[in-house]
């Protein structure tokens, strides 16, 4: 702990404080029941902070063990983050089973695509670098999948309660900033990358503090009650109407295309 610079210690303290506030607000406002996985994620984050603090105070722990254990704890919180996000998307799209079906397929295919791209572009030389790249790959995949899902929600004009929007926004912001920070550090300080781990830690903790501030605002009020809706159309009606509209839209497009392809002639 003594080796940790003061500015990093302060950011860390802010982060723990922020997490505690989010957790207390979740309990006090009764949002715990609505978003149990998000609550679990916040709790796990606090536990992770406590765990790393414990690792710092153990006097004779080797640097390799410290890194392995801290990355293992990070893995747990990253899984919890993915689950918490899926929970919020699920709540938002629950009244629209058709769109939710489309959403999770989009989420899965986008994730697979980004994972492939990340795997192809990763070139870490040391184990430490590879771990960092893995972490960046995760954040990139996560942010892309969530943003694609939000685009889908917007395309279908589905209203997302502001509190949920803020939570998703906080997650995505943190992930995008993590990707940017690591990429810039890797690009400009490649030779002595290990020396810049403290800077990386400070900046990522700072971005997480910003996300926490957004979450504090999001959870300060009870979440809106789910306005359940029933599916109004039967599957057969969709099967009947949808192709008909598509066919007509296709015809309009063909006409437009013909209009465009015609020889230009002055009026």
């Amino acid at each position, binding site marked *: 702990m003594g080796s940790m610079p003061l500015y990093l210690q302060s950011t860390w303290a802010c982060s723990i404080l922020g997490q505690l506030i989010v957790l207390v607000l979740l309990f006090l406002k009764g949002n715990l029941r609505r978003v149990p996985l998000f609550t679990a994620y916040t709790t796990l984050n606090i536990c992770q902070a406590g765990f790393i603090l414990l690792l710092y105070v153990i006097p004779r722990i080797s640097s390799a063990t410290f890194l392995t254990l801290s990355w293992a704890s990070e893995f747990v919180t990253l899984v919890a983050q993915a689950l918490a996000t899926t929970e919020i998307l699920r709540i938002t799209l629950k009244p629209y089973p058709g769109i939710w079906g489309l959403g999770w397929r989009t989420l899965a295919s986008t994730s697979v695509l980004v994972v492939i791209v990340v795997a192809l572009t990763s070139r870490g030389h040391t184990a430490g670098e590879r771990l960092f790249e893995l972490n960046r790959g995760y954040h990139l995949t996560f942010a892309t999948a969530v943003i694609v899902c939000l685009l889908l929600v917007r395309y279908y004009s589905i209203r997302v309660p502001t509190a949920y929007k803020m939570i998703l926004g906080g997650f995505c912001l943190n992930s995008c900033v993590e990707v940017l920070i690591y990429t810039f550090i890797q690009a400009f300080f490649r030779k002595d990358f290990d020396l810049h781990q403290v800077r990386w830690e400070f900046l990522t903790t700072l971005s997480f503090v910003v996300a926490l501030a957004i979450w504090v605002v999001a959870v300060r009020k009870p979440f809106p009650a789910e306005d359940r809706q029933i599916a109004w159309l039967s599957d057969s009606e969709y099967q009947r109407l949808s192709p008909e509209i598509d066919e007509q839209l296709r015809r309009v497009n063909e006409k437009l295309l013909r*209009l465009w392809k015609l020889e230009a002639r002055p009026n």
Partner: protein
Amino acid sequence: MNIALMLLAGFAILLLILLVGVLREPERHGKPENDLAFLEESGRSHATYLRQVQQAMAAEDFDFLAARGSRELSKRTRKERRKIVLAHLYCLRNDFLKLWRLARVISTMSPKVGVGQEFARLRLGLIFFLHYELIRIKFRFGFAPLPELGSLSEVVSRLAVRLETAMRELGERAAMPAKLASTLDGRRLDSR
């Protein structure tokens, strides 16, 4: 900074921009059920004004004006009438948009949607907007022929007519849950 890292950083910045755009409140946001209000006015297709628009761009009118009036007058009339055609094209786009939105409302109201169908429709919409913009530019510079615009209008008009029944049906269905909810609330009140 190598190309892969530049691409990664660029992609992350693009994601941040998209995030801001996606989280911003839409101008006329609302639930799909609120969107159903547009169904009421769907019968008024702008394609019905096609004959007037065709008349507005009839070559005989310009020939007559050029012969009896002045070239200047003919030119001015042509310019003004082209504006009318552009406005008509814009209205046709709105008709298309309305139908495109209807298709999305149908999807949100369905328990199961076809991934392929949805993506095909999204692609159709994107292609439409690309073509629309190109044609608009063409008209603006006075190169587009009018008869084709006529057949385009007919397609939009036919589409509106064929879907009118479906829209009415949807409107009635949208009203049903509200009626059901009010009935249930009434019963709850009665039981108190």
